[in-house]
């Protein structure tokens, strides 16, 4: 597979059953077009005007007609992929489109891999990495909210916010650097108060982005929530009840679940990976033992732990031991089987485990399940999701870059107030800008130099 091949695919937009689109992208697009398209009169097409809708016939390379179509051409400097793109709209069902696709393949195109058009756009510098990543996220997004987050990133909202701050910070850095390099030219002195305001403004903006970065990352990657507890407390029953389908096997025999069961659910827009694990107990049986070990692995890595207790049995020494073992992780306690006569009350548990949140449910009757769902969602992502604070940061890479930028901006602010020399302030400011550049793709040092010369009249 080569990035220089001309690629082709059916890319029918959703919701338009009647028409289908075939896209061809690459150097050979026009050449392929002239092999598989004809004038309505049947003549060969000689001229290929750009961005004009034309009527034509799709044919096999041998000339036999497949369909009447509409086609248009985007030249490389204007197309999505940055290459020549030919779009062909045919009617009818999949059968018909497949024939046209086949014809493009015979004419020398290669079938595109999933996401390859976007990859071309990225490789040709049409979209930046953040946007390319967003397209991939968009394709894979599991819930509406996640879809929205990916869309805002694709629109370049994150890049916009960052570029705005970069621009402001450059306004401080460029005169500092210019003055350092050209001391005998007339360059205005650093105005420390103004500079400080800009730096603090940037810190504020970045912190705003970071404030919901963890949630943003959950939206992209989905959080893992594990159901843990002794055998037979009803973990698998709870999983099924939360999913609304009989996914895991449920029996009255302790030790039913041997390996883990995992499923993604959509909690009102938040994608959550629920994992049901083997009941934890000391056991000789090798298979179950392996299951228990695995359960522990999963518990360790989960974003949220739900420890299920059997209210009809009360808290057993094993329950105590387990809760104690994962005390630091502050698991949520789920008191199950509340439809049965209880050995222990909600109040008593609260008293026993004051650090932990406790919820009563019945997997059997479904009581408390709705509350459990909104509880999990809130634990993961909070309550204040609104249109005004869209999730712009959804990747660890971006989050880390922003945190680093923030750190160096704090140093910069300190340096400005404590009257540090300008070469040192510049070092911190540059480090911050470089961190931001990891998201925006800007190279600080080239930018600085070109701005020095465009802003100041330098040189003897």
């Amino acid at each position, binding site marked *: *597979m080569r990035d220089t091949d001309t690629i082709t695919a059916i890319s029918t937009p959703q919701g338009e059953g009647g028409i289908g689109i075939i896209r061809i992208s690459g150097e050979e697009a026009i050449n392929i077009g002239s092999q598989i398209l004809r004038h309505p009169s049947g003549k060969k097409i000689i001229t290929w005007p750009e961005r004009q809708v034309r009527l034509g016939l799709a044919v096999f390379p041998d000339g036999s007609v497949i369909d009447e179509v509409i086609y248009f051409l985007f030249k490389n400097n204007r197309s999505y992929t940055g290459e020549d793109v030919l779009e062909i709209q045919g009617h009818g069902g999949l059968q018909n489109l497949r024939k046209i696709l086949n014809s493009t393949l015979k004419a020398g195109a290669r079938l595109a891999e999933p996401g390859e058009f976007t990859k071309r756009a990225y490789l040709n510098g049409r979209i930046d990495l953040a946007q390319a990543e967003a397209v991939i996220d968009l394709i894979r997004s599991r819930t509406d909210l996640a879809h929205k987050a990916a869309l805002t990133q694709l629109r370049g909202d994150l890049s916009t916010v960052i570029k705005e701050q970069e621009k402001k910070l450059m306004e401080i850095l460029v005169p500092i650097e210019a003055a350092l390099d050209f*001391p005998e*030219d007339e360059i205005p002195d650093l105005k420390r108060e103004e500079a400080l305001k800009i730096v603090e403004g940037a810190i504020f903006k970045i912190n705003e982005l970071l404030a919901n970065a963890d949630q943003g990352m959950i939206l992209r990657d989905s959080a893992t929530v594990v159901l843990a507890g002794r055998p037979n407390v009803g973990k698998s029953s709870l999983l099924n009840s939360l999913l609304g389908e009989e996914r895991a096997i449920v029996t009255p025999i302790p030790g039913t679940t041997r390996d883990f069961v995992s499923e993604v659910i959509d909690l009102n827009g938040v994608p959550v990976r629920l994992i049901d694990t083997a009941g934890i107990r000391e056991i000789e049986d090798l298979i179950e033992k392996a299951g228990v070990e695995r359960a522990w692995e999963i518990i360790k890595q989960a974003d949220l732990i739900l420890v299920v207790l059997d209210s009809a049995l009360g808290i057993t020494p094993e329950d105590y031991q387990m809760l104690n073992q994962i005390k630091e992780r502050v698991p949520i306690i789920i008191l199950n089987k509340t439809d049965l006569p209880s050995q222990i009350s909600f109040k008593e548990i609260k008293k026993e485990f004051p650090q932990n949140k406790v919820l009563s449910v019945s997997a059997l009757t479904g009581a408390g399940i709705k509350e459990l769902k909104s509880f999990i969602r809130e634990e993961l992502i909070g309550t204040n999701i609104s249109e005004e604070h869209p999730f712009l940061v959804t990747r660890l890479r971006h989050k880390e870059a922003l945190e680093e930028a923030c750190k160096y901006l704090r140093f910069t602010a300190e340096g400005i107030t404590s009257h540090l020399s300008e070469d040192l302030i510049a*070092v911190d400011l540059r480090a911050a800008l470089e961190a931001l550049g*990891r998201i925006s793709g800007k190279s600080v040092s080239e930018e600085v130099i070109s701005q020095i010369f465009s802003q100041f009249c330098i040189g*003897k």
Partner: protein
Amino acid sequence: MKKIYDVAVIGAGHAGCEAANAVSKMGFDTLLLTLNFNNIAFMPCNPSVGGPGKGNLVREVDALGGLIGRITDLAHLQMRALNTQKGPAVRAFRAQADKHLYQQCMRNYIEKQPLITIKQGKVSSIKRIKDHWCLTLNTGVCYEVSAVIIATGTFLRGKIHIGLFSYSSGPQGQHPAISLAESLEAQGIRFKRFKTGTSARVRKRSLDFSKMIEQPGDWLPHGFSYWLPWEPREPVSCWLTYTNQKTHEIIRNNLDVAPMYCGEITGTGTRYCPAIEGKVVNFPHKDKHQVFIEPEGLNTDEMYIAGLSSSLPEEIQDQFMRTVPGLENVEIVRPGYAIEYDVISPDQLLTSLQIRDWPGIFCAGQINGTSGYEEAAAQGIIAGINAGLYLRGEEPFVLKRNEAYIGVLIDDLITKENNEPYRVMTSRAEFRLSLRQENADLRLTDYGYKFKLISEADYQFFRTKRERIQEKLRFLEGNNLSPGSEEAEIIQAKTGLKIQQTTNLKQLLKRPEINCAIIREAFKNGKDELTNEDEVIENLIKYEGYLEREAKMAARLQKTEGKKIPVDFDYSQVPNLSFEAREKLMRYRPETFGQAGRISGVSPADLSALLIWMTRSRKK
């Protein structure tokens, strides 16, 4: 007639002299060729050496055993310390040199080198004959050598413009080198066209200094060179005056005869020393521009006008200069001009400054697309050393970006698309705090000694200095200042600082009001050695945190710099490379992974694609 040398250096400019000196000191028979024996180390432009970045280069060349620092010290007319308030990384000396004295000192020095033979002559071709190179002069003389350093400056197909009048020429009316360029081109070397310019020279007697601001020099405790005893001179002043709206109007009205604006000049010029035409056009709302009047030498009435570089017709230059206060009655000796010339596309160069696939042929100086005496000197010494190592069959000497501005300069040259003559700037150096002007010897003199460019005696002097610095650092680390002590009282009297609790001297030195001299006075310890040891120690201690950060960065750089890319690596195989990156990588052929990442157009994502591919194909 045929003569044999180990190495020939074509050009006795600032690059050529350094190169010849370096390679001859390594023990090789060196032929130094120049178009004109009178014009050795000629300064065709501003007679000024140093400044931020450039001063660091001068010190680095000096620390390696080069010449520019010592010759400048000998020939200086005034010295200034720049950026003294802006921080240690950017402090820099700048010297005005006596142009004629500079040439004379350089010539004397070169003439004393036993292994250098100087010849006036014009090389018209370089040809490979079996395992050596044959240089032919236009007179037909032929030299047989094993290595060549091409340091021909702005002479290759030079063309001078003054107004609409233009002619083939080297700088300041010297001969151009045309057949050499043609011979190289015919053998596949690619050139591009750059342009630079200079301003008119005028008679001192025609200037009215009472209308200008005097710019006296500073008395400095030491000069550029680490090795010469510093003999400061009575500084000779420069003068400052300004252009005005009238000046600008004349220029604006004559753009149709300005070769830069009427299409006569196609070569690209610099943004950092623009002609006055450029300044007026690009910054229309600036109502005045600085003009510095600088002496060309002690024994001449000629003065240099910095800031009015121009290639307008001579009579227009005369007209606009007369509008500048103090220049009303100006007598022009030589008009300003622009010069276009060939530079080698630097994507053909290796980090050693050898031309790729031309074993033993090195290039240095303005021919590589740089500008400035310091940049030329820096490349000259490196090309000289590498020619020597080549002759010995050893690995080339490559300075890293965290070791020297020289490293930054050469690395930038061969990885960046330079669309204008390249000048060092401190903002190009990501290790700026480590690459200070004062510590160049500590960074580089060991290398200079290893290559025998530093004499035994100088090296001994350096080692003693280094040991003294270590000793002083140990003293600071190992001693405290206690409240109420005699020393504490002296310090309080000097600085007003009241010592409340026992403080380690190193910590004490971190305070802004404390310096080495004060501590020395309080502790009556040691004497001032009149080298720059205090400055070294103060910078090391005061900026410790920042320096540590750079050291960490440098360690990271080392990792990518250590990853070599095979010379014949096939980039067309690598999936997921952006097309721009692929094209650039194929053209620049970086030697290391680190270099690949610095090529403009190669993004971090491209780099990871490359890395993944390289690791994968190595496993196979």
